[in-house]
């Protein structure tokens, strides 16, 4: 018998708002422990939550981008449980009436075809703090993360492999990043997933009993846990056993899953509407405002680059890789460059610099405008391509702006008669080389160009020099 693995996901993404979900504390990762806390997020007696409007705006953007139906009225509930990193003794979450229903995630199958994972819902909630269990038997609690705004994206179950499950989370990450809703960085813990795994005989319709693997924080752990857990389930079933509905722990190092608690032991969260928070009302105008400020989607940007701007698909992909790449490319065009030269210089120079310097575009010292100024000088023959590249490199090295360096650079000499004099001088000193070229050794043209550039102390326009060299050698 062959088996089919079915996976459902719960993806938790921390929204990249300035402040937390229900208070004015700064939401940042990496601050000193218990630095960003206040009476509200630590549940002091008398403190009350107030919903962060910016979090709702981001949540709306996510729901639009994932194709959900946004609910005109939603509500926050309390999920009650005791844990030291949950200072109120409850988590504020949308259980009964989430703000977004339906929607879908597009993801690539292993064979490269596109597939769709339908969503059940998205809801907003607050995060808990962190417990740090030390070796000396003490536990420390850091509440900086407590009450950070989260989106929980809950999918339907769909047959898929471990690789494809990771692809789904990857696609979600790309969208959330693209629209600026979440940094969605798994390493920093602001993107996590719970995975529900079941298996059924291939061709069978009803779903098998599922197990849940919680808090997976890397693509590898998502992929491998699905593979390992489905293999375990198949082994149990083939040996005549049954799968219990339970929550299991994933051990990344040993690549095994371990029973944590059964369904009957699962906590009773005693959800009820939070009386401290009014109904969340999302008007059509709120949705339209977010929709109109959403960035171009990757798909429509691809169409624009390839079909409208005639950029080769392979070149377009590197510009599409991140939203800020395309934005920079657009800024280069807005500064007066043609699509072709913006593409060439972005890929040839900007991406190379980022690679070499290991920088994000956000930290890149050059602006699209200053690069465009240099490129225009090249295109107007005032400086050489090599000189243009050198100016950019120099600007990165010494911090002066490219335009400043450009201003201090003498323009290259393109005047025919001046160039002719230099070229003729070089030809006369190297008759043997001229002969060899005429005999078919075209590579030596470079040598002659170099000699002319040297004679001009680098001032000659190399492109024109080549033209003149070619003409003279062929003529005589």
């Amino acid at each position, binding site marked *: 018998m062959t088996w089919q693995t079915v996976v459902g996901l719960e993806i938790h993404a921390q929204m990249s708002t300035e402040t937390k979900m229900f208070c004015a504390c700064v939401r940042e990762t990496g601050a000193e422990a218990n630095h960003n806390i206040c009476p509200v997020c630590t549940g002091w007696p008398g403190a*009350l939550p107030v919903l962060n409007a910016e979090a709702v705006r981001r949540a709306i953007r996510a729901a639009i981008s994932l194709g959900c139906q946004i609910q005109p009225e939603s509500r926050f509930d309390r999920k009650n449980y005791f844990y030291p990193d949950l200072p109120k003794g409850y988590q504020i979450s949308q259980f009964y009436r989430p703000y977004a229903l339906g929607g879908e995630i597009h993801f690539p199958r292993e064979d490269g075809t596109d597939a769709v994972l339908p969503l059940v819902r998205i809801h907003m909630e607050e995060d808990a703090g962190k417990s740090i269990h030390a070796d000396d038997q003490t536990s420390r609690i850091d509440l900086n993360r407590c009450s950070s705004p989260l989106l929980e994206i809950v999918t339907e179950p769909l047959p898929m492999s471990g690789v494809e499950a990771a692809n789904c989370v990857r696609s979600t990450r790309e969208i959330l990043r693209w629209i600026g809703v979440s940094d969605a960085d798994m390493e920093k813990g602001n993107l996590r997933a719970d995975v529900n795994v079941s298996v059924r005989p291939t061709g069978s319709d009803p779903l098998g009993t599922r197990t849940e693997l919680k808090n997976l924080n890397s693509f590898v752990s998502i992929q491998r846990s699905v593979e390992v857990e489905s293999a375990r389930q198949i082994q149990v079933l083939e040996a005549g056993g049954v799968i219990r509905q339970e929550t299991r722990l994933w051990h990344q190092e040993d690549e095994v899953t371990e029973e944590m608690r059964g369904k009957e032991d699962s906590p009773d969260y005693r959800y009820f509407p939070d009386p401290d928070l009014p109904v969340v009302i999302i008007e059509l105008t709120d949705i339209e405002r977010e929709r109109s400020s959403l960035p171009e989607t990757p798909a429509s940007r691809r169409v624009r680059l390839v079909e409208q701007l005639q950029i080769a698909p392979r070149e377009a992909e590197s510009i599409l890789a991140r939203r800020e790449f395309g934005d920079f490319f657009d800024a280069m065009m807005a500064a007066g460059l043609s699509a072709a030269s913006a593409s060439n210089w972005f890929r040839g120079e900007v991406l190379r610099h980022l690679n070499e310097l290991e920088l994000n575009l956000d930290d890149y010292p050059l602006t699209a405008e200053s690069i465009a100024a240099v490129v225009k000088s090249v295109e107007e023959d005032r400086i050489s391509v090599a000189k243009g590249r050198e100016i950019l490199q120099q600007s990165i090295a010494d911090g002066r702006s490219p335009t400043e360096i450009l201003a201090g650079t003498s323009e290259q000499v393109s005047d025919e008669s001046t160039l002719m004099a230099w070229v003729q001088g070089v030809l006369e000193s190297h008759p043997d080389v001229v002969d060899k070229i005429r005999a078919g050794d075209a590579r030596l043209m470079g040598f002659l160009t170099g000699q002319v550039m040297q004679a001009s102390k680098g001032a000659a326009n190399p492109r024109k020099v080549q033209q003149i060299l070619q003409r003279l050698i062929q003529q005589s």
Partner: protein
Amino acid sequence: MSSPPSLPPRDATVGEVTRWLGEHRCSARQLIDGYLDFLEHLGREIGAVVETFPEQARAAADQSDQRRAAGEILGPLDGIPFTAKMNITTEQGTSDASSSILKGFRAHEDATAVRRLRAAGAVLTGKSNCDEFAMGASNETSCHGVVSNPWDRSRVPGGSSGGAAALAGSHGWAFHLGSDTGGSIRQPAAFCSATGFKPTWGRVSRRGLIAFGSSLDQICPVARDSEDCRQVLQVMEGHDPLDATSLTLDDETVQPISRVALVSEGFGPAIDEQIATAVQAAAGQMADQGIEIIERSLPHIEAANACYQVIATAEASSNLARYDGVHVGARESSKDLQSLYETSRHRGFGSEVRRRILLGTFVLSAGYREAYYTRAQAVRDLIREGIDQVLEECDALLLPVSPFAPFPIGERIDDPIALYACDILTVIANLAGVPALALPCGFDASGLPIGMQLMGARGSDHRLLELGSRWQQWTDHHRALPDGGAA
């Protein structure tokens, strides 16, 4: 300037004291000194006062006098003493909600209502005793001890705002902040012959009120008369950016109330006959003054107390989860997390609070939730709709506050059902979110105070208070003071 001849009479209202201050018949400093003396002696004797702030209060009084001398007073409450219930956070002193689990807790921050009153010049002089986490109707569950009724010290003052009402019932000059979740300001006001007002839910910010049943809780004034409550409400009320459920108020034109409905269920067999008679007499006095009195039945009122017990305890079970011994709350040393929770919470909470947490946890539990919590919410909707309907035919409802007179200390404390019966006529206002005003309306044969209450539509707070003021001009029940403890 010659020194003032004396202090205002002991029964003087805030309004009257304001006139004394305005006419320089006494200074705020003299007033505060005199009031602190009352708090330290009678206030402590009856257990109503937990702590006082003499230094800060005297300094604030001196500043008030300087403002007055410069002609820059901040309003009618400038220089007036007030106290806050132990479940209302204050920058000064402790705010432990009368619970061992919070013993010594300093909030370091004024509740919004307290902040607004202090900004209007009112002087915080101390903190008043109450039932633990405001759970009780007799002020017998406090970790600070029992409060005595100033009219008969062997009897309870009512609860949970027993300290605040006992102070208001014993002495004028001041107002007191309490809270009302199911009757906690009105029932002690009635027991102590004071005037207490529960605003429309959301009218006063709950920021700084240590939560019990959040959808029912309101911070409330208790004072000598309705006009004093109105002045205090006017300063406290209105939207607070720190409480998402606080209301943004429109300018309210106060249309005088002209038609009042007696609620027939308030005069049934479960109600003490002398109380029913006194409230009916009050209705007669209103009729004599030209107010039309009709009689109406409130649908579903018989289900109100059960509904209230389910919703209030459900919310309390969640609100009190934060007192876990890890963050806020006394921590008992323990070998593991589970026992840390169990011992901290078992030792920190009193038995009544534990009982309500258990009940609330039960009614929200899987398998019982539908039968209790969900059903109670549906009943709550019916009660709200019922009261709204009756209030379309009249401006206010009139009924007794308590079905019986103040009872002896210890009589009901071991019988929760008997204790919960205190709430049968008050909880409807909290369930429906409507304002309710408790007014003294006489004494029974044993000389124990009787209170009546007016309820109006949501948002008609100032109309109710205006009717209360008018009625108090026609009558003088609210002027009575118990013997003893002269200021």
